[in-house]
């Protein structure tokens, strides 16, 4: 799937989704343009992950439309979507018996004939990708024996093996130690800046969102309540209204902009 000039990668139009009588998404509309880094933030249960899962058609949109390069995702084959979109889900399975190399090679699925075993050229390519995320030494280690941070890098590598033009990540740095958080942020930044890969990342780390994204979409109770540059959100009282809590603000050095921290209760 090739991106057309100026055509948004994604156009989400009035997307709603309900589970039982709970409205998880409430008429959400947003666009993602080529080369953009979009962070999706908001409190727990705001519908962020559900939105992302609609984008990759893990959930079929029952109401509204999700257009990928102008085509409704419901009309596309799953393989066509995967050839353009890499998806890193929030949680990884407890049992994943494959080695890192095997798992990354499985990411080649939308790009190769699924009837044949990946050849040595594909393996060399997978090793290159592992090297790009700093995990070449882990190629022969079992994924389910790795730490959370190592595993997350392997999952990103497997999504990159799809050669996507847009990468969707669901809380890529949650539960990771500061080193691995930084590693993941660096990988995403380099993908975005050096290769022009579009990124849509759901995150709870508002400072990461403000620092790295071109645009933030803030969600609350299933609705997109803010869609604009990070500066517009990182201020009183928007952040307070979004998360229903107090924040302290600090200005970073140079281009780092404003940082926000939940205010201590004591």
């Amino acid at each position, binding site marked *: 799937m090739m991106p057309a000039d100026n055509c948004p990668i994604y156009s989400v139009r009035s997307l709603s989704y309900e589970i039982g009588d709970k409205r998880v998404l409430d008429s959400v509309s947003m666009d993602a343009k080529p080369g953009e880094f979009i962070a999706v933030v908001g409190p727990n249960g705001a519908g962020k992950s559900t939105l992302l*899962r609609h984008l*990759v*058609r*893990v959930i079929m949109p029952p109401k509204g439309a999700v257009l990928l390069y102008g085509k409704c995702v419901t009309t596309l*084959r*799953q*393989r*066509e*979507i*995967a*050839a353009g*979109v*890499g*998806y*890193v*889900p929030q949680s*990884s*399975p*407890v*049992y*994943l*018996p*494959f*080695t890192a*190399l*095997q*798992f990354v*090679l*499985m*990411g080649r*699925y*939308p790009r190769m004939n*699924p*009837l044949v*075993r*990946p*050849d*040595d050229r*594909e*393996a060399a390519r997978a090793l290159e990708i592992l090297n790009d995320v700093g995990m070449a030494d882990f*190629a*022969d280690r079992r994924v389910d024996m790795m730490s959370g941070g190592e595993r997350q890098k392997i999952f990103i590598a*497997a*999504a990159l093996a*799809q050669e996507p033009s847009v990468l969707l990540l669901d809380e890529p740095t949650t539960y990771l130690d500061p080193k691995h958080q930084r590693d993941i942020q660096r990988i995403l930044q380099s993908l975005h800046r050096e290769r022009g890969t579009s990124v849509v990342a759901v995150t709870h780390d508002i400072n990461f969102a403000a620092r790295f994204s071109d645009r933030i979409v803030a969600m609350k109770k299933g609705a997109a309540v803010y869609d604009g540059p990070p500066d517009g959100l990182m201020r009183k009282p928007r952040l307070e209204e979004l998360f229903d809590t107090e924040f302290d603000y600090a200005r970073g050095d140079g281009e780092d902009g404003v940082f926000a921290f939940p205010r201590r209760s004591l």
Partner: protein
Amino acid sequence: MTARTRKPATRAFASLILLAAVVAVAAPLVGSSNVSFSDIAGIFDAEPPTAAERIFWQVRAPRVILAFIAGATLALCGLSFQAVFRNPLASPFTLGVSGGAAFGAVLAIKLGLAFSIPGVSVTQIFAFGGALASIFLVYGIARARKGFTMATMLLTGVAVSFFFSALIMFIQFFADYAHSFSMVRWMMGSLSIVGYKQVAQAAVLSAAGGAAIFLRRSEMNLLTAGDEIARGRGVDVDRSRAAIFFAVSLATGGVVAICGPIGFVGLMIPHIMRLIVGPDHFDLAPACILGGGIFLVLCDTFARTAISPFEIPIGVITAMLGGPFFIWLLFRHPN
């Protein structure tokens, strides 16, 4: 998967192929009366076949081939269900295939139906129908429920199995002794009365179902990683799952109709092969075909010879091995 990881698998495959060849040649020689190579060498001359030649070519050879086909099919079907359900205890029998087949067979025996289409007995037709009906019933019920998951389907399979068991007991209760004995004997599984016709019947269905499963090795790898990852990589999960379900019901139904419900092969062999060749279904699928075939031929040879001239039902042997295997699996996968 690649040259880098393929080496141990290559060695394992060489051993499995060698073992399969040895077992395939040696098993028909062994029995209540042993046959030697020199006894059977004359089959190609113009003389009428001797007793030893008849035993080898007309009795034991088709039986060994059927045992291999049945073992290979059940192991491959078990493997595909373990991938689809992401559950080490999933097998076609967990989903009520054996229960359905047994109900079909028991019904045919009870009704004393005698019609047949050429080469296929009515019991076989009913058993095949029962196997197909049970798996489609389980699939239909589970899919009809909102928020359908693989766990739902497994539990539906267990429920349907129990239901079929109850129906079987109900029919048995009203059956006379002769019918009741036939029913129990059928449910123990057997490879005894067999000719090349039955081999051909099992082979056609196994080959059709097995090929459909074999073509989905990439998808089975990704399904092992979970639906969300599989979808993200481009697998049409619903279509793949439906195709595997249909293929498994066809292949298992074909085998169970002829051999009866031979349990535990589909459960044990994939796990053993996973230890030998690793988790990649490109290796696992052919390994299960070889391993399942070898295993069931060995079990059948034991069944024929252990208390010769009597035979132990093969389902009894696989179940005796399967019980301790379950416990081993429990310790190996504490979660």
